[in-house]
């Protein structure tokens, strides 16, 4: 049975992608972000199983694992902390930062209130910085709006006649592209932007690999994915290194 032809799988896949995109936009915890990229790759591989020959799916899977591991390694290198946003939060006092395990942690001060907070020695702090309610609402609305628009565009007759693909594949692809663009558009943190770019590229890949199912294209797209992960990982390390120096922890 073609897995992707079942309606249930389509809706499950779509819901997973939307939830993943929303989580990427809302969560600051890099452990969650890395987990999300694994999930996005898993869904895309399941879609590829229905559209590509098995040797190409295998190539895609290997690429996905490499890319996800690169993000994992980057996050691990910077101690899982989302430095640029956390540093701006500390400077502006726009986020609430709470201590969990004060006994183990060095101390810094919040610039807004002058109140003392504690930071972990391994800097496991990002998940403690919760976004404001207005940010939460704004980003949730963006996810809903973009999902609706992407699904609608995927089901236009013009789109179908242009690409000639199954509407379900195009829906998932377009939602991934739209949410990927939203992620890269709403952050200046290289790590999260890198995840957004990978989401965008994976969404595009769902359509393009089906249109051009050749080993050369798959190989070049794999190199593209890896280079994007490498570039954003490098930028993450550069920023984190500087921030860790200036924050003195």
């Amino acid at each position: 049975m073609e897995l992707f032809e079942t309606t249930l799988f389509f809706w499950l896949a779509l819901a997973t992608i939307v939830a993943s995109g929303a989580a990427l936009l809302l969560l600051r915890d890099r452990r969650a972000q890395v987990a999300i990229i694994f999930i996005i790759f898993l869904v895309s591989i399941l879609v590829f199983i229905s559209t590509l020959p098995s040797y190409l799916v295998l190539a895609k899977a290997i690429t996905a694992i490499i890319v996800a591991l690169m993000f994992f390694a980057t996050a691990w290198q910077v101690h899982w902390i989302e430095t640029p946003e956390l540093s701006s939060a500390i400077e502006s006092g726009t986020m609430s930062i709470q201590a969990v395990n004060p006994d183990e942690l060095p101390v810094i001060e919040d610039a807004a209130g002058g109140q003392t907070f504690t930071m972990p020695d391994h800097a496991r702090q990002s998940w403690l910085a919760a976004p404001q309610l207005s940010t939460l609402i704004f980003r949730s609305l963006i996810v809903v709006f973009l999902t609706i628009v992407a699904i609608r565009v995927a089901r236009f007759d013009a789109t179908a006649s242009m690409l000639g693909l199954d509407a379900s594949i195009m829906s998932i692809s377009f939602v991934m592209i739209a949410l990927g663009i939203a992620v890269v558009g709403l952050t200046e943190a290289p790590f999260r932007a890198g995840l957004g770019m990978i989401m965008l590229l994976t969404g595009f890949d769902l359509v393009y690999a089906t249109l051009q199912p050749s080993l050369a294209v798959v190989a070049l797209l794999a190199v593209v994915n890896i280079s994007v992960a490498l570039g954003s990982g490098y930028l993450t390390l550069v920023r984190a290194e500087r921030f860790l120096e200036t924050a003195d922890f």
Partner: protein
Amino acid sequence: MALNIPLVFLFLLIVGAIISWVVGRWQTAQLGVALLTTLILLIFTTQVPLESNVLALGQSVILQPVFNFVGRSLTFSDQVRPALTVLFLMAMLFFIGGFSIQLERTFVTGGLLVLMLVAATILVKPFQFAALFLQILAALAVFLLSDVVHFKTRGALRLLVFFTIGVPFVLLAGWQLEGAGNATNGVDILDQAALLLSIGFLILLSVFPFHSWVPVALEEANSYAAAFVVTVVNLAVIFVLISSLADIDWLRSNYIFQSVFGWGAIATIVISGIFAVGQRSYGRLMGYALLSDLGATYLTFTLTDYTSYQLGLVLLIIRVPAVVLWGIGIGALAPDGDDSFEALRGLAWRKPFSALAVFIGGLSLIGFPLTISFPVRWQLYQALIVSNAWGAYALMLASVCIILAYARGARLLLDRSALPESETPSDSDLVAAESPVNTVMCIIGAAALLIFGIFPQFILPIFTALAQSFPQLVG
């Protein structure tokens, strides 16, 4: 024995990059390796015969111009010779300029790898696969734009993001063009492909509103490295555009391509001018000046006669010496990276030749009278006023705005009162703060831009001949 020409390019550039990394502790050695590599490749590009046997080291060597990989190819032909020649000449200028300023270790190694990807972009067939190399090129360029010293990452990240968004459009357009021949609704498909291709190139060519990475990169990164990246990345994309124009002849006259590109170019020029006038750092100002010049180049691609295309190519080539001179000057004026007008206040009295280089380079870029770009800009104005008057007015407006910004910068740079009395230099130690190499390069560079601006008949025919040697645009 067989020698694959495309592989020679890639192999030599990789070897050059590895050697330059190994000798990374000595910047002069690094630059020497890079210069030698690009010189060898320049000679190879211009001299290597196609599909023939040559005698090397007592052996007969068969030169193969095509390297095939899983259904795609890297092809060396007479069509790509001019592009590779321009690329290596440009790279040599940047590497020569690098001798006079302090650079990061990654610049030379990363620069050679970037050149390898641009070469692959030029050599790959069909053209849409060049877009994938462009994406990899953007990812590699971030290593030149950010490092621990220049830790701000906005410019590099935006470059990566814009290319990630732009490349899919070119790939999709390429796929559509491949299938257009067999389709019943061929005209519709061609229009769709033209639209996708136009959007893709607008993004990749940093046309407004996808321009923001350029000024930010020039402000945040090492100015010289950023100038190199902006120039090379733009050159690579323009070569892909030229290649696509050669493959898709109807695209030049397609109304969608014409209007999207024409208005995009004008918007870029106008926005660059408006933003430039308020800038307070030389890096950002250079970013907007570069964008304005890029917009001028793009305008030539919307004109349908072939002479205009060649004019655009001459603009592309003539920009490089101006950018290099500016980079040498700003690298010496602001070695710590802070190139704001305020930080450099009064510095013209301590580093006069570097200051001169910044102004001559910057003004040459926008076609200021008596500089090398002026005759070319003048021809462009003449062509535009006939066929696209709005373009000519926009370009003039932007140039005036940029000149005003430079004038404000000059006032601060020449502000002698900013120097403490004890540091006010006498005439005898005016040049003491500048290294001899830097001084010589600034003088030679500024003199060349001015002399060839006053007597363009000595240099313009060479650039024009180089532009005319692009067989894709001869028509």
